[in-house]
């Protein structure tokens, strides 16, 4: 906001030293430089605010258990040790719970994408009666505290006999992520030029072929980004998971359930272990973030 790159002062002239300019211009340039420096200072401060706590828990996760319990704490993992992390990974139930989490998130990803892709395509490409009503209700559902519905759903799952199953958590997580995924996928499809699809039809593709050969390849990166985000949402979700499972805990549910029984090394290593995927996944989907969340305001 503070600077615009190519405006009046800079343009085609040979290099001019600032101190040769009239005083007002000098002042204006100084002020601009100052503002720019201020912007960088704020940008870096905010980045530190986000990164520093991650660094701290990472430090603890990669210090030896004795250092983890030590006080005052060290600010960097020196000496570096994987002992705490190994202790966490070998703790009872952690590996099965991690596997459960991956299975749940994977199932959620598949189910959510399979259901939302056609719906998103329909909203993006067709005009039909009830389209706006559907979109609006999806927006409303999106803002609804769906997670809280895990409690009544657990009772239903018990009667039906699918309580404490990995796939039943995935069913709930799909409901949780579906509204977001539908909106995102529809915006992804909407960004694929309609002309390309029509051209494909002109050259003899039927609707399905045109979708398969032209639209899908173009939409794939966006759909993949949304799928990744679905995975992360499911991987992170804890309330529904802890309500819907007893023995087949997902990782967050296991950690939450054992919080009061476990020591600091377990908590720190667990906390860090849970946030690693988000560091990686967000990197891949960052270009699509505004597609995903910007959608919601329209």
């Amino acid at each position, binding site marked *: 906001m503070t600077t615009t790159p190519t405006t009046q002062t800079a343009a085609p002239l040979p290099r001019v030293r600032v101190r040769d300019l009239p005083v007002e211009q000098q002042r204006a340039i100084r002020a601009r430089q100052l503002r720019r420096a201020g912007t960088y200072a704020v940008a870096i401060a905010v980045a530190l605010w986000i990164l520093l706590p991650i660094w701290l828990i990472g430090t603890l996760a990669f210090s030896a258990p004795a250092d983890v319990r030590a006080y*005052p704490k060290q600010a960097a993992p020196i000496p570096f040790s994987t002992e705490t992390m190994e202790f966490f990974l070998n703790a009872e139930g952690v590996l099965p719970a991690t596997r459960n989490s991956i299975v749940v998130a994977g199932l959620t990803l598949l189910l959510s994408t399979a259901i939302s892709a*056609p719906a998103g395509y329909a909203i993006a490409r067709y005009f039909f009666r009830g389209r706006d009503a559907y979109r609006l209700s999806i927006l409303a559902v999106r803002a609804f505290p769906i997670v809280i519905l895990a409690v009544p759903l657990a009772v*239903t799952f018990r009667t039906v006999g699918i309580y404490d199953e990995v796939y039943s958590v995935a069913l709930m997580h799909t409901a949780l992520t579906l509204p977001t995924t539908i909106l995102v996928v529809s915006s992804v499809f909407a960004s694929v030029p309609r002309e390309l699809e029509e051209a494909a039809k002109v050259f003899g593709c039927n609707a399905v072929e045109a979708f398969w050969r032209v639209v899908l390849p173009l939409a794939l990166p966006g759909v993949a980004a949304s799928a990744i985000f679905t995975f992360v949402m499911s991987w992170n979700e804890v309330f529904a998971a802890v309500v819907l499972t007893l023995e087949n805990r997902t990782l967050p549910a296991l950690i939450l359930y054992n*919080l009061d029984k476990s020591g600091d090394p377990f908590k720190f290593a667990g906390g860090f272990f849970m*946030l690693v995927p988000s560091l990686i996944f*967000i990197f891949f989907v960052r270009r699509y973030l505004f597609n995903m969340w*910007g959608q919601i305001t329209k």
Partner: protein
Amino acid sequence: MKFRNMNWAPYLLLLPSFVYLILFFGWPMVQALGLAFRRDSQILPLRAEPAVEEAAVTGELERGTTVEVLDVEVFETQRAGGLLTDRVFWLEVSGTDPEGETITGWVLRGQVFVADASRSNEGAVRANSVTLRAEPAQSAEAVAELPRGTEVDILEWGKTENRIAADGLLQKPQNWLLVSGETAEGEAVEGWVERAPIFVEDATISATGRVQAGEGSKEWTLDYVKRMVRDAKFSQSLRTTVILILLILPVQFVLAIIMALVLQSQIKFSSLFLYIYAIPLGISDLAAGLVWYTIFTQSGYLNSLLQSLGLIDRPFIFISSANKEWIILAIVLAEIWRATSIVMVIVVSGLQAIPRDYLEAGELFGASLWQRLRHIILPLLKPSLQVALILRTILAFQVFAVVVAISGGDVITVLANEAYRWYDIGAYNNKNVAAAYSGFIMLLSLGVAVFYLRAVRTQEEREAAG
């Protein structure tokens, strides 16, 4: 839009999502209301007389109520062609019903769990036959069989541990007896057998018990809601949730707008900054709670820092029941840290939608950053901010894992945590009250959404009129 040729394709494409949301969104909502407002088989009617099916009901006790046992009557019925007498125990109990009145009446022995039935040492087999086992467990090796009616001496009373069965339900501890008796062949044997198929003679019954079964119909009730509201933790959790919202949201919005402006200001490495600012989007509330726990725990980073600066000489205990403000502060910081990114992304999308000319015009006329913010950016950003506000408030009503991770969920509690505690088998194990909490959170969210939307509309009307 033309509807000349009705095209069914979009409806077919929407169908799966529609069905899915009905199943996993619509139905649980109905179920939540049913659980919160319908009573089912949790109420034990007390009868005016023992052993009479149609005896008048004197009152009803809720499951879990503690009762006093006033009297015991034993009725003998002949079973299996008169070979065996079955004894049925009726207890006269008194307890406090949900309305707070003390009522007295008769119930069957099995409907009330009596804590310490005194243990007699004589009994008889009342099932068709029982298998004696080497250990008090179903899986243990079978030692012998005893036929119905065999008299046994009870040598020892044992109890199994709490355990989770294969179907995921908690199994109550089972009573096992070590008995000795004679088999049909006249051989003396000894082994463990479950309590249930053995009739224990003259077991006297202790003075207190707990209602554990019930009958009754589905009927509308406000009991669960009343129970939720009367619970001391209810107002506490509601207050904390609201306080958290009031403390978190303003800071969050200011910070999000600053972050968005920074990202939009065409600085170098802006894609790196975008990545860093977006990281919290993918961090779970539990992980965020644990991250801030490392800072605020007694031997944590905050104390380490203060100590190395010489400001304190021994660690200060931030997270304790005496320092609730510090716990709240830790939760507030963790939530701001974790959940500001969502607001930021929405604000950035809103900023991108503002025509560049407006901003450049402002700059050209020499408006300061604050003036541009106040008169150009914020007014144009209003729709985005409203959406973000609704979304964040509703999400804040569900705040759960952050609170549990930082405070353990005991000293400081929030609505979602109470819903979980009422649901939890290890805690209160009452799905009805838990569902009442769910319904309450839904209602609050709905109320907030309606409130915000109306506030926006009246404001627009006022602006249009003025």
